[in-house]
């Protein structure tokens, strides 16, 4: 399984990550950590007034699967509406990667989605808090 996992596009995104870097003025951001292998990921989103994602960045370190997954996901997100982004499910990520994944490596693969959801959810939280006030 291992060699099938490290296909050209995975290695390409790992070695040359797209949208890698910090975003000091992000509208939404979240970080999470996979304690199993120490994958660490932060995703930053910039959105406009219509809720369209105008820019995405990520930082972190970890295995090829977690980092390439993040790189590929950020590419997918640009131009999407927040509600659309919320609808991305794990199957979509697995299809995006297009490689066989064991249960253990699935966690690495899905860390990017987990962080994205956390970032999107954080806005809902802050909105809910604002409404209470």
């Amino acid at each position: 399984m291992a060699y099938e996992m490290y296909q050209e596009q995975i290695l390409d995104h790992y070695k040359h990550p797209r949208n890698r870097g910090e975003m000091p003025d992000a509208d939404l951001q979240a970080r999470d950590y996979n304690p199993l292998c120490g994958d660490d990921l932060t995703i930053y989103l910039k959105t406009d007034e219509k809720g369209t994602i105008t820019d995405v960045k990520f930082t972190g370190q970890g295995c090829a699967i977690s980092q390439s997954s993040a790189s590929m996901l950020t590419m997918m997100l640009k131009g999407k509406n927040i509600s659309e982004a919320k609808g991305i499910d794990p199957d979509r990520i697995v299809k995006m990667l297009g490689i066989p994944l064991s249960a253990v490596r699935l966690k690495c693969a899905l860390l990017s989605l987990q962080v994205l959801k956390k970032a999107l959810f954080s806005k809902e939280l802050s909105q809910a808090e604002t409404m209470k006030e």
Partner: protein
Amino acid sequence: MERTKPSLDVAKIKKDFPIMERKIHGKPLCYLDSAATSQKPRQVIEAVSEFYSNYNANVHRAIYELGEDATRGYEGAREKIAHFINARSSSEIVFTRGTTESINIVAYGWGIKGKLGKGDEIVSTVMEHHSNHIPWFFVQDYKGVKLSWIDIDDEGYLKMEDLDRLVTERTKMVAVTQCSNVLGTINPIKEIAKKAHEVNALCLVDAAQSVPHFPVDVQNLDCDLLAFSGHKMLGPTGIGVLYGKEKVLEEMEPMLGGGEMIREVHLGRATWNDVPWKFEGGTPDPAGAVGLGAAIDYLSSLGMQNVRKHEIELNAYGLEMLGKIKGIRILGPMDPKKRGGLIAFTIPEAHPHDIAAILDAEGIAIRSGHNCAQPLMERCGIPATARASFYVYNSPEDIDRLIKGLKKVQEVFA
């Protein structure tokens, strides 16, 4: 290096381990993860099976012959363990589920339920496994004691000047590993215990990576408490040991309440059983104990000095061969005699998880990750390592396979 006169007959030993016949992705298993858990020889598997087939009953309760057989097996294993680590008597040997439970029993019975208070201190080290960190965090949170940690130098040795600085009249416990599961560093326990005793503190030793791999003599070390696991020393999972000097154990409160650990129970009050049974509430694991006894017989027949020599040989060859890999970072002492049989490393091309995945495809099992030592990873400034660890069934050929496997990793990530 000298490879003419090996300390152990690995080819013969390997035949005792049924799992070594397994193919992984079509390749013979190359098992280099014994620091996580060791494989089991037929002798241990059969001892466990024999227990269930021929003398299974609850220990210390049944009056009938079967029960007496089971109790004899269980207590006989305790005797073997006492002898193996040179305890004064088998009453110093408490059966637990493993190192983690052993240390928790102390943290609870000596720490949380003990006389500690604000102003008291516990000294540990930055190289501990989480199982020798978290229980003391509990004590810190419950009792307000201060924790401090002896640092390491660039080679991965404890900074002994920190020991002198941190162990003071306020220190009540020095809890330290005998052998780091990441750096491999073997710590000078005798010296550390002596220092602890100078200020009337206790010394607890995490021996999870030492008792399985080299001779350990608790009287010589003069430590007060020592914890290890059966599954890392050819024994079954779910059985481990807490050694304690009798006086120290007697002063500790039990963690588990229930059957076996009591002397008299009335509604609302009870008195405790003698040590070691005071700490063994509930039905214990006699099959596991008997299995651990068989593991000790197996290791004793090889001779722990020979096991140690064998691992030094593998260390020497492993350090030499791994050292040739460009950009590799090997953690811990570079002297093969100063480390336990394990080598943790990183290579620039690939994350440890990816290294382990590709090695797996070659039939090679190594550990990758933070090795349950996140504070140490932080101290070393790395998120994770790959770790190859050795035991009685490993040979230099396993290291050759590891090196070939790492070349494949470099090819994939080139």
